[in-house]
């Protein structure tokens, strides 16, 4: 420690022999301590980084699995108790409109129930049926006198600045205020949103002489020439489809309505119709009855509607009444609610065995959780696949159709036995229930990701319009009514497919190359090959992707037959080279054994690659009927040629193996008596015989399999697309070869050299040493090299983005494209809305990748550590 006065050293120096201060300076000690702390902290930062990445990914993805919450439940009573015919509300759940059966419209503030305005539509009598379009703006009322009237109920939105606010507003709650019939809502930008209700009602159109008991209404056409289509059922049981074409005079604004009607084929006597439904295209009409039967009419020919199909909505006895019927917003799915509490979704699917006039059939695709009491009212979401179902026992369930989950189970405050109308808010963030006594239940809820459940992400779901449940990824589309499909399975599959094909190409080349480099290659060549390979490791993959997609893919497409041939010709060429080499005189082969031999190998590959290129068309003509793509498509020929090609190496192995088993010993003893050249020549002949035998065997097997009806097309080989798994496998393999190669070479190289020396000294050839001494010792290191290469292939992004065609399909076809998790993230994340379902699902994809590579890398690391220990022990 510093002592007082130690600063006077220099003064003391003059007089006495310098007495050195033995203690360390304070500053040094402090510095040491600071360094100690900060370096330890810094070192642990790596752990923090990994944990942060993981936790952050989890924290973003987690809300996908968590549910939602009911934020507010307001209960109040509107002035006059009256039968509710129709409900509508604005986009932001501010203003509600209640239209009663006798034509009274009243507007109220939804959160508080404050009365805003009221008006009388002056109905001649009480409405007996009512229906509207999915946005709830256009409504049709049917009356007891057989007439129909159309109304429009909407809200004019606007945004004004604080300066333009009118004076004397009545404050409704913390954000909303009322002036006249306009509600002002404060936004967090400081501006105000205005909501003003507006409505119109049209004249009565006579449809029938009998009271209308069920109606449905759709609007199509253009703004200048809207068409209203509606279907009515009257008390006499007559169902009519009608079309009103409205011509609006642009000068005067006067409307001219032309109404045409067509009567549907009569229903059986005594049928009691409960609900009727029509599609926007006005070519489909559904009628539901009390005994649980669904009638589907084909109205494509407006003048002559046809009863296309009659089906039972529910299994079992005919005492289950269809009490509710609605299309989901896309009109591809129809929800049926029954008096037994069942909520089922039907798709109209094209089925070859359909017993219907148009080849379509209603198929029950989803069965939602039963509500346990009759479904008395239903409301579907305008933009999502959600729906609200009201039970006779007062339970109000909010469901999501795609994921088949029940989001909320609410219970109304008002008396359960009073009839009520229900409306799901436009943004699916609330539900409004008004009963005939004027009692209102209004819920505000928040359920950010109803589409995703574990099953939706990793399981099969039956999506709208699909013939069967599938694993599908399709996150976005042009239309509003699109059903997003968030299954990660095709992407995980694509990742595996790309990895498998890449490794099939990379692992043999990299490992064999590493063994050759480490054990046989001339030192001078090795000194250049190794650094070059290391440098290839940091090659930007965007470059490889560009080459793959814009250069290689068109070439491979044009020369696919030659490429396939080269898979055969290059190995055969190398074998040929080897057997020729064996026939060389020993002195010559020893002399040329080093670098020249390696160049002969290079030359052999080039030569036989060229041979494949030259023979490609001939080969294509001989085996694939002159057109590989047509063959692979299944247009021409049988699967035999391909089976022959696949079978050839296998047959060769079989032939060689069985020969080795039976005559191997004798054969070797025979050869041992001959000189090297003679033995080489005889061995060459044996190889030739083997090749022929293998070809014959393979041909025979392929023929037999084809006769048995087996065809590989449709499996691993199928329709060719330009950007495919073959190209990806080839180029991604090229990208991971350097990784595997360097790591494997390091592992082989670090096998203690005394093992090598001992083996060679005991008389083993270099080949035997490499195969039976070095490789077993290095096996775990080599394995971990493969694992690390695999980790890299799993996460590789740019190559697959550019060259894989980005089609999320589930098949092993080597000639079709794929989409991997990583490519999907790269393509879709830039467009994903922050904190939306897609955004979070992509984070989940990233998390999946993270976990996948984490497992692979940790495994590789453990194996590697084991190998290290073993190698040091030897």
């Amino acid at each position, binding site marked *: 420690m510093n002592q007082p006065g130690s600063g006077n050293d220099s003064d003391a120096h003059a007089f006495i022999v310098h007495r050195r201060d033995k203690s360390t300076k304070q500053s040094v000690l402090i510095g040491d301590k600071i360094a100690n702390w900060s370096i330890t902290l810094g070192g642990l930062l790596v752990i923090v980084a990994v944990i942060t990445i993981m936790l952050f990914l989890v924290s973003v993805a987690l809300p996908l699995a968590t549910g939602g919450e009911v934020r507010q439940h307001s209960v109040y009573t509107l002035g006059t108790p009256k039968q509710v015919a129709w409900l509508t509300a604005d986009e932001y759940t501010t203003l509600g409109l209640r239209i009663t059966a006798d034509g009274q419209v009243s507007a109220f503030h939804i959160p508080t129930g404050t009365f805003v305005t009221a008006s009388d539509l002056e109905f001649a009598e009480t409405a007996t049926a009512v229906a509207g379009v999915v946005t709830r703006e256009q409504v049709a009322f049917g009356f007891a006198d057989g007439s129909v009237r159309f109304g429009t109920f909407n809200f004019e939105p606007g945004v004004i600045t604080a300066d333009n606010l009118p004076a004397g507003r009545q404050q409704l709650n913390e954000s909303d205020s009322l002036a006249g019939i306009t509600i002002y809502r404060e936004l967090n930008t400081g501006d105000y949103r205005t909501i003003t209700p507006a409505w119109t009602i049209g004249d009565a159109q006579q449809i029938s002489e009998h009271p209308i008991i069920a109606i449905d209404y759709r609007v199509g056409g253009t703004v200048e020439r809207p068409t209203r289509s509606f279907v009515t059922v009257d008390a006499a049981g007559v169902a009519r489809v009608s079309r009103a074409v409205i011509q609006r005079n642009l000068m005067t604004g006067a409307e001219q309505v032309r109404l045409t009607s067509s009567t549907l084929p009569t229903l059986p006597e005594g049928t009691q119709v409960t609900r009727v439904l029509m599609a926007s295209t006005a070519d489909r009409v559904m009628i539901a009855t009390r005994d649980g039967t669904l009638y589907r009419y084909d109205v494509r020919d407006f003048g002559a509607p046809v009863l296309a199909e009659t089906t039972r909505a529910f299994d079992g006895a005919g005492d289950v009444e269809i009490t509710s019927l609605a299309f989901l917003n896309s009109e591809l799915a129809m929800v049926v609610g029954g008096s037994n509490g069942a909520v089922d979704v039907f798709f109209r699917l094209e089925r070859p065995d359909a017993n219907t006039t148009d080849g379509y059939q209603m198929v029950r695709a989803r069965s939602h959780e039963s509500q346990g009491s009759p479904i008395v009212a239903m409301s579907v979401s305008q933009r999502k696949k959600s729906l609200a179902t009201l039970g006779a026992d007062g339970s109000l369930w909010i469901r999501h159709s795609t994921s088949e989950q029940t989001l909320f189970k609410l219970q109304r405050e008002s008396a359960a036995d009073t009839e009520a109308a229900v409306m799901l808010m436009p943004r699916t963030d609330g539900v409004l229930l008004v009963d005939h006594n004027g009692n209102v239940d209004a819920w505000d809820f928040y359920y950010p990701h109803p589409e995703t459940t574990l099953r939706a992400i990793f399981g099969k779901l039956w999506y709208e319009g699909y013939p069967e449940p599938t694993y599908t990824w399709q996150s976005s589309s042009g239309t509003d009514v699109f059903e997003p499909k968030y299954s990660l399975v095709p992407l995980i599959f694509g990742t595996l497919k790309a990895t498998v094909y890449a490794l099939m190409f990379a692992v043999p080349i990299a490992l064999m190359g590493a063994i050759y480099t480490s054990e046989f290659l001339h030192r001078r060549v090795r000194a250049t090959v190794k650094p070059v390979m290391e440098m290839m490791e940091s090659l930007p993959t965007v470059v490889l992707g560009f080459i793959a997609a814009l250069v290689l893919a068109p070439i491979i497409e044009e020369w696919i037959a030659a490429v396939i041939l080269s898979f055969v010709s290059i*190995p055969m060429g190398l074998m040929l080279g080897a057997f020729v080499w064996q026939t060389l005189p020993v002195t010559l082969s020893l002399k040329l054994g080093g670098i020249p031999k390696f160049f002969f190998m290079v030359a052999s590959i080039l030569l036989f690659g060229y041979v494949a290129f030259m023979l490609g068309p001939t080969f294509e003509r001989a085996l694939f009927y002159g057109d590989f793509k047509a063959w692979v498509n299944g247009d021409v020929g049988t699967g035999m040629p391909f089976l022959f090609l696949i079978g050839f190496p296998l047959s060769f192995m079989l032939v060689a193996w069985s020969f080795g088993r039976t005559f191997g010993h004798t054969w070797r003893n025979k050869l041992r008596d001959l000189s090297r050249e003679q033995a080489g020549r005889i061995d060459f002949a044996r190889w030739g015989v083997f090749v022929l035998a293998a070809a014959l065997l393979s041909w025979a097997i392929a023929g037999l399999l084809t006769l048995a009806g087996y065809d590989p097309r449709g499996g691993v080989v199928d329709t060719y697309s330009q950007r495919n798994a073959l190209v990806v496998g080839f180029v991604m393999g090229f990208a991971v070869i350097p990784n595997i190669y360097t790591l494997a070479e390091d592992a082989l190289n670090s096998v203690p050299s005394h093992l090598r020396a001992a083996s060679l000294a005991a008389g083993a050839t270099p080949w*035997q040493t490499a195969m*039976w001494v070095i490789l077993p010792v290095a096996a775990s290191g080599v394995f971990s090299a493969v694992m690390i290469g695999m980790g890299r292939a799993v996460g590789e992004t740019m190559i697959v983005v550019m060259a894989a065609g980005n089609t999320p399909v589930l098949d092993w076809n080597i000639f079709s494209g794929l989409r991997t998790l990583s490519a999907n993230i*790269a393509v879709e994340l830039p467009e994903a809305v922050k904190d939306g379902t897609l955004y979070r699902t992509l984070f989940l994809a990233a998390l999946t990748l993270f976990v996948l590579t984490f497992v692979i890398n940790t495994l590789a690391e453990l194996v590697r550590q084991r190998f290290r220990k073993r190698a040091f022990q030897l």
Partner: protein
Amino acid sequence: MAITAESTGKASLVEEPKRLGVRKYSADISAVGEPWLWGLGGALALGIILVAGFLTMIFWNGASTFWPKPIHLVTLTDGSVVAGEPTRSSVYRVSEAIREQLGETANAMIDEGDGFARRVLYRSANFDLYGDDFRWVSEYEVERIETPADFFLLERQEWGPFVGRILKVHFDGEEIAADKLSYGQLRRYQDQARDRFHEIRHIEQKDIGAVNYYIERQRLGLRKVQLRHGDDSPEYAAAAARTNARIAELEAEFAGYQARIAEIRERDRKDRFLLEEVGGRTKDQLMSEVVRLYPANDLSFGQKVGIYLSRWWEFLSSEPREANMEGGVLPAIFGTVAMTLIMVVIVAPFGVVTALYLREYAKQGKIVSIVRVSVNNLAGVPSIVFGVFGLGFFAYTMGVTIDQLFYPERLPSPTFGTGGILWASLTLALLTVPVVIVAAEEALSAVPRSMREGSLACGASKWQTIRRVVLPRAMPGIMTGLILAMARGAGEVAPLMLIGVVKLAPMLPIDTFPPFVHLERSFMHLGFHIYDVGFQSRNSEAGKPMVYVTTMLLLFLIVAMNSSAIYIRNRLKRKFAVGQF
């Protein structure tokens, strides 16, 4: 594949020689495993061929792109003419549907080629007239090919190149027939016009850019005062008056520049070329919009070299034009280098400290092995995951917080709350830190123990030893690691696509406006440039030359960095010669 050696190895080891006579030299042919050796060697050879072929292809295409090609005037058998640069040729199979429409001679030619025909891709240019840049011409269609000397290639600011004749030159109201002018005279005219173009560009970018920048600054300053003091405060009123006065000044300046530009433009319109494409259609072309022109078939070797070099210079020193498909890549080079440097500044302390911890401070045990597993996992996690993390954590979490705290006046448009060069560099730093850690550890362990002990024995503290003795000796190794990290970082594209890279950055991340370094700006990147031009442009074929050259440049950067790292490392290895696995 041969299987002969399946069990030979073991068998030949245990087997007793039958007769103890003179054994013939290495007669057991299967023990040598020649076919297997050829298989192993063939795999390596294949790998080398692939690497060599790949590099050759990039280099060949990249290096030859800028060489001026001749213009072929091809007369087809049906009488129509095509003029363009031959780009590449290929052999293809002629489909039956096409063959049916062909005449006898053509079919005979195809039959001769075994159903295949050769075709040449001509860059016919003139996108504004043809709606296409390229035209395939099959060999059997060709009547004759000429190389007329009066055909010019004009590279233009917009619409890509033009191939055709120059009919007339309008210069300052004068009309001159082009055949009266030599190539040198044409170039002089064009040079003068081009200078005006550059002048306008300069005023627009530098002067008007500065004025806009200052106006925006004033506006933001006012908004800041408004947020701090409120609308009705005297401070705001004072600031508003000041700001408005300044803005009025700046706008006056702006109007001055506008007038100057209008004046130059007025003069500019008087200099035009009247061009004629091969089919006879004419095109009136502003001279200043022509970047370069040359009579492709009438060039001496020296002129060709000159054009080649000038194109390279344009590529390296100017901004891209024509949707990045032509012009230069200076902003991309700048962005890549800036991002890599910022990344190195971040990654160096992080990596070195971790390596120091692992080598010098930590006691071997659980924690160290957890750190090692973490390092290995950081190295193995796919780069796109880092991009996702960077976007979600850096930009959307940290950046949004920074915006709320420090840049409230710019909201709701984000400053740091979106991708930018800082976040990209941080993300890549995270990605490359394992490279630095591994290299630094290796370097630290290569410092002989005796040196440490000597220092400690002299009374130095641990930190003093590390700072004065260990780190200086390990420095080359650490540098190697940093260079390798830079090489890795410069080549990464996938994470950058999510966080801050754009196809065309309006402003560089470093410029002459204070605070000079704008870490929040998005930037351009060579790797992304390749992706963008190759895949997002209107015609990938037209973008290909650009992609090749950019690829070559990027590869050159990375290979240079890598080889210097390897060189330093090898020298180190020789110096210390410590075996390490």
